[in-house]
């Protein structure tokens, strides 16, 4: 496995808005990489630059070691599954899938076999002569996949392909995509604003915001060790608090000292102001006075698997978000405890731009 796609210092602005402010990205062969971020973070533009539909103002795009920045879209060895599928409405399913092969003047017998193979792969056997407007959203999505993969691209670019589907179908298609990727053995570069999609499918998640890459890593790394408050907030629910390192591996939040596992070695010497992330499922409920800190439950919601509670600290300064399998009543006074390894210490950002630049180094 080697590096397949590399972006170097990509900058792009539309009119007066700078959309990408220096993107460096590397995608390995056969990886499932997800670009994750809120709308307007530049993820779609990044994908369109790789697809060849947008020219970067600065920076280069490499494919398999070759500079393809100036290569037109129709010669790039990548194919795209577009957000709204972009199926050709005046052609039937078979003709849609055959399009790229007809462009290349492949023999009809080959095309016929390939259509059959692609339809089987996406579980739509026998759909050759259906019209596009006779298909459901999920089926259109599968046809868009089939159309993109018959071209045998080395990378499939997917631009929020599940965005238009309902929840149940979306979850089903997540499994489908992972299966497809395994069967095809090609690289997927996937775009979404849905953190669940990103965490469940990817080998690597790249979190983007405001034209910068905020963090990249495995789903576990991104979830367990967010590098800043944005990532922590965007990925899952979390308590993000302002704290101060008071000693080696000891952080003070709202006048209470919490043992943690970060100190000078990790770049957080005593007297450093820091951001602290504590995931709501990592707060354990103890009898009142038996934990590290106390609080009063002020609201409770049942969310299927667990209860979600808001707990107000005794001085009223902090509202903690808790998730717990056990039921507790509103008004109940409880003690709470967090294991040192579940306290994530992060650098406090000086400003958005500064923090992002630091990440680039």
């Amino acid at each position, binding site marked *: 496995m080697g590096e397949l796609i590399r972006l170097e210092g990509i900058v792009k602005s539309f009119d007066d808005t700078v959309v990408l402010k220096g993107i460096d990205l590397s995608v390995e062969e056969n990886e499932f990489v997800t670009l994750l971020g809120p709308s307007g973070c530049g993820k779609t533009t990044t994908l369109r630059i790789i*697809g*060849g*539909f947008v020219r970067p103002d600065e920076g280069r795009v490499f494919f398999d070691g070759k500079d393809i920045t100036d290569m*037109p*879209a*129709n*010669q790039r060895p*990548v*194919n*795209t599954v*577009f957000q*709204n599928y*972009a*199926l*050709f*409405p*005046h052609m039937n399913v078979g003709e849609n899938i055959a*399009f*790229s092969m007809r*462009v*290349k003047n492949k023999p009809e017998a080959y095309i016929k076999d390939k259509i059959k193979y692609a339809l089987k792969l996406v579980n739509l056997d026998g759909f050759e002569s259906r019209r596009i407007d006779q298909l459901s959203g999920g089926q259109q999505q599968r046809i868009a996949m089939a*159309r*993109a993969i018959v*071209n045998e691209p080395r990378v499939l670019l997917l631009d929020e392909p599940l965005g238009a589907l309902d929840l149940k179908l979306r979850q089903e298609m997540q499994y489908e995509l992972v299966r497809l990727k395994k069967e095809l053995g090609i690289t997927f570069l996937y775009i979404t604003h849905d953190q669940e999609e990103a965490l469940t499918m990817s080998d690597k998640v790249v979190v983007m915001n405001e034209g910068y890459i905020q963090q990249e890593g495995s789903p576990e790394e991104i979830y367990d060790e967010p590098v800043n408050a944005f990532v922590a907030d965007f990925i899952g629910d979390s308590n993000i608090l302002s704290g101060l390192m008071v000693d080696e591996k000891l952080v003070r939040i709202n006048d209470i000292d919490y043992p943690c596992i970060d100190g000078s070695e990790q770049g957080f010497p005593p007297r450093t102001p820091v951001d602290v992330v504590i995931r709501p499922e990592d707060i354990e409920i103890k009898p009142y006075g038996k934990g590290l800190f106390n609080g009063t439950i002020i609201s409770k919601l049942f969310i299927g698997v667990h209860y979600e509670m808001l707990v107000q600290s005794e001085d009223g300064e902090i509202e903690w978000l808790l998730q717990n399998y056990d039921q507790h009543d509103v008004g109940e006074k409880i003690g709470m405890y967090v294991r040192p390894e579940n306290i994530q210490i992060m650098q406090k950002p000086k400003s958005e731009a500064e923090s992002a630049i630091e990440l680039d180094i």
Partner: protein
Amino acid sequence: MKKVLGRIYILIIMLFLYLPILTLIVLSFNEAKSMSVWTGFSLKWYEELFRSKIMMGAIVNTFSIAVLAALIATVVGTLAVIGMSAMKQRQVNVLMGFNNIPMLNADIVTGIALMLFFLMVGMPRGYITILFSHVTFCIPYVILSVKPRMNKNTDRLFEAALDLGASERYAFRRIVLPELRPGIMSGFLLSFTMSVDDFIITYFTRGAGINTISTLIYSQVKVGIRPSLFALSTLVFAAALIVLLTVNLRQSRADKALAA
């Protein structure tokens, strides 16, 4: 009671709309030249129509100008829409403003303006100037009917075609053009009807020796109208009716085929 009143209401409307045309058709088969007395069935006015070089000439002029003007306007208008798709929204808005003004402008102003223009550049007025004028007033309608087909979705389909390896030319021919086709067709038909219908602009831009159906009828009114003109009008109406019926019939057949 309500139902009966409703029926009567519709009947009255139908009479208002179609009784004049019906009168025209009946009179075209009248033996006498009279417009008020029925003396017997005859096809002699149709005979006169087909023998008259002036009338046949007007028919040929009308339809050849309509077909040519519609063709040229459709090509120019479609190209304009394609060009606009690459422009910024603000520029497009300005252009569309200019595009809409000629449609709102009174025909008589357009007609006189074109006449003055042809006089100024010293262009001899005749078939060519009529054709030129018709192309001019048809283009905005083509743009207006093709433009909605050229949208974000068309851009995306074009990109998808490129993504699948098609050259720009191939993508345009196989993907964009079929997307625009309904707009192009309706633009063409609209232009054709507008051209056939036009009297005022044609009247001002034609030369002395040339007539279309509308200008011919107008000039004949002054010397006393002949029933052969009724015959001509009847034929034009019949042609329009037949076209309309076939189109509707085809549509309903297509719908049925789709439903099946």
